[in-house]
């Protein structure tokens, strides 16, 4: 029987949307009991968000909701209403973690500010994940995944150089904030083991993006260069430039290259039968190769035009140790033997949405492997946690 890392911990999730609930999903996967408090009748807004599964009854039809809320319990409660305060207090009483995403000031306005909570529940860890945080001039601003990427400095870096920048698909900014929330929660739990005291964990989505750049800001502070976007090609400036790091067409699709180390370049030239390039002074260094990107692209495209992406991957990466990979669509990803053999997928049967395949997490752990159960139906656990009949409450 698999142990779980957070066994015995209780989380009260008031959070809605993607960032907070993704943090909650991780807490549940590592073994915490996560009680999700949803709005009456409609629930978390993601219950109405794309992608919507055809022929599945609302509010259980959103693939986004089903994915983000695996392993949680659902109760419906208008927790902002004073009449329900004793019910909320009852839930808080036994909670180790409060996970919230409401706009800045909401909890304070309800007498649930951190200081008040801390007085009453000294061990409680209160996590707040919002777009801009609880202070500063943007505190009350509105965001979307696109706006967060823009202000967090990610948007500017992707897309064609002569077109508008291109966003990462879906909810990337929010997922990254959720990961920050999980690390903040576990760090606060570690601290609590020694002090007995809970504390507040605050994460702003735009800061979690700004924090995760590789060399974006140091290109300015160290080299006084603006980092910009280059289509599928990686950065080109001076010491930051490497090549070929790009995506190129082959017989049946596209492949990507990430040649970043000298011996990989040597192997690549040998693999494609162009050892002459190794002694050609024009290709002597990575920065010079980066400037010759169009010429290198032509050479590689010509070498690949009759080869499939699968063959190129196995030959280049498997035999010649050149970092190359196929560009896969979702079907190819789901059929990939490596992901399957690693156990990246799990199939969960939901009473309304039925059997679906879900990604788990990118880790395999020998003692505390994350576990996944289906998402709850709206108010499914009202009876258990609120002592209320589910239908009355809804």
């Amino acid at each position, binding site marked *: 029987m698999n142990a779980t890392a957070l066994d015995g911990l209780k989380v009260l999730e008031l959070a809605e949307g993607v960032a907070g609930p993704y943090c909650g999903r991780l807490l549940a996967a590592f073994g915490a009991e996560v009680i999700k408090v949803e709005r009456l009748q409609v629930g978390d807004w993601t219950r109405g968000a794309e992608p919507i*599964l055809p022929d599945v009854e609302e509010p259980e039809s*959103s*693939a986004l909701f089903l*994915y983000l809320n695996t392993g949680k319990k659902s109760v419906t409660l208008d927790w902002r209403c004073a009449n329900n305060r004793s019910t909320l207090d009852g839930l808080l009483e036994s909670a180790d973690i409060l996970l919230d995403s409401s706009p800045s000031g909401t909890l304070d306005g309800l007498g649930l500010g*951190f200081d008040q909570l801390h007085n009453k529940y000294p061990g409680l860890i209160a996590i707040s994940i919002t777009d801009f*945080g609880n*202070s500063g001039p*943007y505190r009350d601003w509105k965001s*979307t995944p*696109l706006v967060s990427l*823009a*202000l967090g400095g990610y948007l500017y870096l992707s897309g064609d150089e002569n077109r*508008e920048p*291109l966003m*990462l698909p879906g*909810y*990337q900014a929010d997922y*990254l904030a959720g*990961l*920050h929330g999980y690390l*903040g929660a576990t*760090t*606060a739990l570690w*601290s609590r083991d020694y*002090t007995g005291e809970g*504390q*507040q964990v605050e994460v*702003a989505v735009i800061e979690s993006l*700004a924090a*995760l750049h*590789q060399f974006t*800001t*140091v290109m300015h502070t160290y080299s006084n260069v*603006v980092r910009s976007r280059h*289509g*599928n090609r990686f950065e080109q400036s001076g010491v930051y430039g490497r090549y070929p*790091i790009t995506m190129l067409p082959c017989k049946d699709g*596209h*492949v*990507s290259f*990430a040649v*970043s180390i000298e011996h*990989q370049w040597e192997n690549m030239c040998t693999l494609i039968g162009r050892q002459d390039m190794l002694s050609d002074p024009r290709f002597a260094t990575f920065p010079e190769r980066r400037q010759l990107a169009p010429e290198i692209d032509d050479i590689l495209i010509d070498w690949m035009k009759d080869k499939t992406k699968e063959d190129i991957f196995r030959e280049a*990466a498997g035999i010649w140790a050149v*970092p190359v990979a196929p*560009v896969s*669509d*979702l079907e190819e990803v*789901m059929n990939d033997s*490596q992901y399957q*053999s*690693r156990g*990246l997928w799990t199939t969960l049967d939901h009473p309304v949405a039925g059997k679906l*395949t*879900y*990604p788990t997490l990118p880790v*395999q*752990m020998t*003692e*505390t492997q994350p576990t996944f159960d289906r998402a709850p139906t709206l108010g499914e656990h009202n009876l258990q946690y609120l002592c209320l009949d589910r239908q009355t409450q809804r």
Partner: protein
Amino acid sequence: MGPLSNIRILDLTRVWAGPLALRMLADFGAEVIKISDPRVPVDRESGTNNKLNRNKLGLALRLDEPEGRQLLLDLTNISDVVIENFRPRVMRNFDLTYEDLKTVKPDIIMCSMPGFGSEGEYAEYPAFGPSVETMTGISSLMGYPGGPPMVSGIAYPDPLAAMNGAGALMSALLHRQRTGQGQFIDLALSEGPVCQIGEHIVAFSRTGTQPLRIGNTHPNHAPYGVYPCSDDDQWIAICVTSDNQWAILQKLMGNSDGDDSRFASSASRVSHRAELDELVGQWSVKHDSRELTVTLQSLNIAAGAAVNNWQMLEDPHMNQRGFMMDIDEPDLGVKRYPGQAIRLSSTPATKQNPSPQLGEHTRQLLHNLLSMSNAEIDRHAEHGIIGLMKE
């Protein structure tokens, strides 16, 4: 200093994902000892290494020499975590697998972060963020409408592996705290992005339909996208999600066709997206991206300038919140970096030490942790087993 100061980590990782994972914990006070090859100079010039390794200690050690390996085992014996991101065969060749480490420290937590995981068909394939990214499905969703798949251009799998790795390590540490049990964590760089398009995987498993690439657009809302601004290569994201917001924007744009039926409802705006985007673009291009952001946000419309590196560093919001971190680099002067996004109210991340020089703490660590004499340390240095920072 910091909530994790009683955790000692041996950091054998290189490049981006691994170093960032441990820097997250180092920011919160973990004693992260970065073990590097004494023959390989540390890059202090580009800034990348300095950014990803702040708050760590530097120990230069040859893992491929028997005496160096023994020193690593001696250090493992008094550490909590060992982490590496080589290809799997490298640690096998050093005889430093989890089984080897467990022999000297039964409750050690070891984390490996190779490209495709430690086992399976692709285990030994080389992998970097920009290549594995395209195998995760995210590229198949990324692209301009009607265009080919695209890559992020920023090695997107790396920061995801870092965050998942740091989270898994904390989970394992909490588990050890409660049970006394260590474990092995096998993290695949190639899997992080898959878990951040989970909604599309779940839907695909039912419908079998590959979603269209929609660029910056939204299926149900318009105008929603990225529009040009007045300066060269300056852009703003504007997301109108209600009729009321559209009315406000229209008024701001001074659009005389206020009652244009093409744009009356969300649905009709979506079906006339191209004309609408052109109108908004003709207006936005006369404005400064950051000023326009403030104007639109004051009217409750979600908007954000697509900031570049120096604009992000001077962002008034993050600066006012004290997010940026100034570090005094001994050889370079004070440099400003993005700080730690996780704000803990009673045990905040306050450490701001510069990343170590090659072997900067070798002598200190071997002396303090392994009680080695200066003579022993010097002998190892002469034999090239360890590296000492040049005085």
